[in-house]
């Protein structure tokens, strides 16, 4: 796949369709790839990489990149294409300035999960069919099933469909029937006290680095209210741990209906907080209360929370669903 991508990118640079390419750049190791803009064929040959660790969603970068001079080629995985389409819907992207090649993706690996298996001193990771063959500085070779170490967002992939593209490399996919709401259902079955304790515990690890917010394609405010000294709620340090926890809840509310469930928030959290569960709860609720809706899938579909319909649920639905007043 990587070779085909590089070859096509070079063609498009050469024939003037685009003047630069947004992709991933190889790092020190197999896994520390960095999103990067390439402007020459030599750079593509030297540094462009597409492998099991190119998980970073490139769509958010296109807010800025699409405002620059000339057209940029962007390689978008299915999940990235949902984010892109959602940003288009929000008029954040200048579509004419982006040439999209949709690329199939069967899942990306989580280096953290590989480390959790006790594998240390990783010097190489090779892909062989359904396995990763991992070599270490300790002269060991480990064979790990790829699926076992997939990122959460890939294990619970919502769709292999590329929703917006100018051309495709590889096969077009479809919505999957992934069990992505299973964890949410478990939380719903808890008592309010148990659920409160669950989130207090998970969020207690937050170091407020803002990685979740800054990576989130739906968090595209020019200046976040929590960074704005004039907002009165600027929040470099929270007054209490509860206020800290609320940051995540407020953020989840703010992206409700716009979050495509790309899973980047949980991927980047240095403390391993399952932030995606907050967003998935909102998605699940909207599906149940306003009808099936997948943000990013259809740029014309009305946003369930912004649009009014006479048969919308009443706020009291909380009580009829068994919730209590807290």
């Amino acid at each position: 796949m990587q070779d085909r991508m590089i070859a096509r990118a070079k063609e498009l640079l050469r024939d003037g369709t685009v003047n630069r390419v947004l992709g991933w750049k190889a790092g020190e190791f197999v896994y520390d790839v960095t999103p990067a803009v390439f402007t020459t064929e030599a750079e593509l040959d030297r540094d462009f990489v597409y492998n099991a660790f190119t998980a970073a969603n490139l769509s958010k970068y296109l807010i800025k990149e699409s405002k620059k001079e000339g057209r940029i080629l962007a390689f978008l995985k299915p999940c990235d294409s949902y984010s892109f389409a959602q940003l288009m819907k929000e008029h954040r992207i200048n579509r004419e300035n982006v040439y999209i090649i949709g690329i199939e993706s069967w899942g990306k690996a989580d280096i953290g999960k590989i480390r959790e298996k006790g594998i240390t001193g990783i010097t190489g990771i090779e892909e062989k069919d359904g396995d990763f063959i991992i070599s270490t500085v300790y002269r060991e070779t480990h064979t790990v099933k790829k699926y076992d170490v997939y990122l959460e967002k890939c294990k619970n992939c919502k769709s292999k469909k590329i929703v917006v593209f100018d051309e495709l490399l590889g096969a077009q996919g479809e919505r999957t029937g992934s069990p992505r709401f299973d964890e949410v259902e478990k939380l719903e079955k808890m008592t309010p006290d148990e659920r409160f304790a669950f989130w207090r515990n998970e969020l207690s690890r937050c170091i407020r680095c803002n990685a979740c917010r800054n990576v989130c394609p739906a968090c595209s405010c020019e200046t976040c209210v929590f960074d704005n000294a004039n907002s009165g709620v600027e929040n470099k340090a929270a007054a209490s741990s509860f206020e800290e926890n609320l940051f995540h809840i407020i953020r989840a509310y703010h992206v409700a209906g716009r979050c495509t469930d790309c899973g980047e928030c949980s991927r980047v959290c240095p403390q391993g907080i399952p932030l995606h569960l907050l967003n998935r709860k909102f998605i699940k609720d909207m599906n149940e209360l306003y009808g099936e809706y997948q943000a990013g899938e259809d740029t014309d579909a009305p946003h369930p929370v912004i649009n009014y319909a006479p048969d919308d649920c009443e706020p009291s639905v909380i009580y009829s669903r068994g919730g209590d007043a807290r």
Partner: protein
Amino acid sequence: MKKTALSNLDALFGRISEKETLYLPVDGKGGAAFAPYAKGKTLTEKLNANRSAKDFFFPQTETLYEERTSGKTLEIEDVREECGDFVLFGVRACDVRSFSILDKVFLSDPADSYYQNRREHGTVVSLACERPEETCFCHAFGIDAAAPEGDVSAWKEEGYLYLRAQSEKGEKLLQTLSDLLEDADEKDVENQILRTRYYLSALPLGKISFEGMKEKDLLAHFHNEKWKSLSEACLGCGACTFVCPTCQCYDVREFDTGKSVRKFRCWDSCMYSDFTLMAHGNSRNSQMERFRQRFMHKLVYFPNNNDGTFGCVGCGRCLQQCPIGMNIVKVEKALEVRDDE
């Protein structure tokens, strides 16, 4: 040198925690983390804690003082309390060295009394690394992960925990544990030390050196064109800063409690858009400038001001945690390449 069987570890921890608070890295969700000891808590097998150990001396937030007004008088309340004695067990060589880097900042005249208070009451028991990660490069800064610094240095070898006191505080700690310890021979850990040093040299970053940074002057680094491409993908989050054992920048803020004004300080990150924001505005308006600040601070400004000591200990946390895979090693390698290459 002393030793005790690893099966005695719980008794040892129990004894320490009778008199002072004992913190040790334990497994938890999202990785290992330093936590107060309680019976049954065991030392993690992981190489290092997700967050660095600096938190114990330089916490993420702390109240400095409180102000209250009544009529025309302003009352300032010093809310400091004498810190209780505590022991940090299982600190790796990189994090131990980070304390001496923080000392240069917080203990130089005038000493920061908040930091000093904690530093004086803390005893550091380091633990030698046996299986360094591919992201480790502490050796680039003259740190020996096989024989770490600390008030007490410890090794786990062949079913025993070996302990060597290296300071007065360390001697004192081992004395209180003397009935749990037996004499040991330095030779018992020699093999491990040699083995670990071999692994360190064989690591992918085994040969990396930052000394080349000193060959160009400050402005040459500052104006390097590479900062633009290096910082291009930076999200401007603070993950690198907040897991870093040597990042030391803080902000001082006020919080209105309704009855008083609480003056507090909290970690700051040069990656943030409001870093060093002042009345006139911000001196670093682009992410490139903020990104540059982080690496210039560690690799140029800090050594310039501290006899050549770099503000990095090679713990590799930023290599593991950056959401977009950018880190100090990539920066160093990019900057060191000569312009004509």
